[in-house]
């Protein structure tokens, strides 16, 4: 069978999702953000709900998410995406409203909005990319930076007396009455990507069915910030991030 015969449209088993456009993404090579963007686009397409979806972008690396996914987006101020999403969902109760936030945005400057929104049980999905560092601003310490991990603002490694401890925001979220689904996933392997996709899909369905707040944490890499190749970053993630941020559901209430 020749190449031309195989390369016919009916034989396509995987391609860039329809809702992801051709704009080259500004993310560094191998960035987990891009993979999660792709998952979101695939799920929205599969669910066929782009006409009733509103995304809320963060400040941080994903600040330009709106350039890549062809849905309506609101760019929130730093950390305030959950507040924006709360209002949107209440004003558009039939819509899917989700935020897409990084660790600095969600777990530091926006902790108040995050906790309050999840505690109110707003019927939204929060997608939380945890790569333990501030990527956009050039690799500073994040609330989720691991102990001993070096960043440009803790160049000798994170230490408790100077910087406090890495924040497990999903563990906190799981204790809140308003959340129905809190899960921690990763996109470092093909298998994990499939699981992460399933989790985001479930979160979106929860939001549409009004079951409460869903938080999907994605433990991810930042090869530029970590100063490693993308492949080394995935290894480092497995060896260092996952023991502290173990994968799996922290809470899953199915009515």
């Amino acid at each position: 069978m020749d190449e031309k015969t195989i390369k016919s449209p009916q034989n396509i088993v995987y391609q860039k999702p329809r809702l992801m456009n051709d704009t080259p993404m500004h993310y560094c090579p191998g960035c987990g953000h891009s993979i999660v963007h792709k998952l979101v686009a695939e799920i929205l397409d599969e669910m066929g709900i782009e006409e009733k979806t509103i995304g809320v972008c963060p400040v941080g690396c994903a600040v330009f998410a709106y350039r890549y996914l062809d849905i309506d987006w609101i760019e929130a101020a730093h950390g305030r995406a959950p507040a924006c999403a709360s209002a949107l969902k209440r004003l558009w109760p039939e819509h899917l409203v989700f935020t897409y936030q990084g660790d600095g945005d969600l777990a530091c400057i926006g902790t108040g909005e995050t906790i309050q929104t999840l505690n109110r049980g707003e019927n939204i999905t929060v997608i939380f990319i945890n790569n333990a560092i501030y990527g956009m601003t050039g690799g500073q310490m994040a609330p989720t930076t691991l102990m001993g991990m070096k960043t440009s603002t803790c160049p000798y490694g994170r230490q408790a007396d100077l910087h406090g401890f890495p924040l497990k925001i999903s563990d906190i979220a799981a204790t809140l009455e308003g959340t129905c689904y809190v899960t921690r996933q990763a996109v470092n392997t093909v298998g994990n990507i499939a699981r992460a996709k399933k989790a985001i899909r479930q979160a979106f369905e929860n939001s549409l069915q009004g079951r409460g707040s869903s938080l999907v944490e994605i433990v991810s890499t930042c090869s530029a910030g970590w100063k490693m190749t993308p492949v080394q970053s995935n290894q480092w993630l497995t060896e260092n991030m996952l023991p502290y941020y173990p994968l799996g559901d922290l809470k899953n209430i199915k009515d």
Partner: protein
Amino acid sequence: MQKDNDILLLKGNEAIAHAAIRYGYDGFFGYPITPQSEILETLALLKPWETTGMVVLQSESEVASINMIYAGGGSGKCVLTSSSSVGVSLMQEVIPYMAICEVPGLIVSVQRGGPGLGTIQPSQSDYRQATCGGGNGDYRTIVLAPCSVQESCDMVGLAKELMMKWRTPVIILSDGSIGQMMEKCILPPYTPRRTDEEIRRQCPWATNGLGLKDRKPNVMTSLELDQALMEKRNRELQKKYARIQQEEVRAEHYHTEDAETLIVAFGSAARISMGAIDNLRQQGHKVGLLRPVTLWPFPEKEILELASRMKRIVVVELNEGQMLRDVQWASQFRCPIEFIGHSGGVIITPDEISRKISEMGKL
């Protein structure tokens, strides 16, 4: 719903709550702070979500409130928030986002004495914060200053019209005395909230997904990496502001026809000044009042015209002289300009204004 009483004895704050429901607002998002908490309390009591479908949410902070109206307005809904001085300071984070993204939204600012936590008594010391753009960047907000409970109510309707027409945040700059005092208020008839279809037609720019299959995605963002593009956006905004200055100036005259001394005052200071003018006129002083109803756009032309035929202008404010600068600028100093004011929550009386103007002597 029409069986509801249409004439009520209300506080200024309560009137705003009633008006928001009746003018067909889609949502209110606010945080308690004295002296404006009655707005949220009244809305909670009236339960509009069961009647008109209006959303009411007590937010976790003023920062959250303003983000909620940024997102709500950005999605094409007609929304409002309210707060007082220190709370409005917190909102400055996102008012610039609303301005540059051209998001409609109403911010009711019920001023109290400042700076900082200050007092809970009435003040007008946030004039500059409201009119000069309290946040970052080259932007303006339309500012409406009510001087009665009735006007507080009516301005909620006017604000809706202006914010949707110009796609801009609008501030109602009330204060503790207008917010707390009770007066008769004639409430407007109910305007139904817009349907999704109406929103889709009227707000094709809104980020709500409606009709996405037949259009490009809508995005609300203030971020530009290209400085030339950012400047272009700024220049477009300035053009809009120039048109607003042409078309939306509002001011009220009181005995200005034969006046030799002109008081310029807004909001509660204007109300108090009217009492002083009545006293002074009985004593034979020809005093009149110009009350800017829109503080931005500011009635510059009217002030210049009046300054040209007055012997004196007296600016009366509940602050240390904030609008004073705008009056001086607008009048081009064509007559002497004096200032009478109190700050920190101290209210001026008509007697004090009358006495001070009498003492200023003949010119």
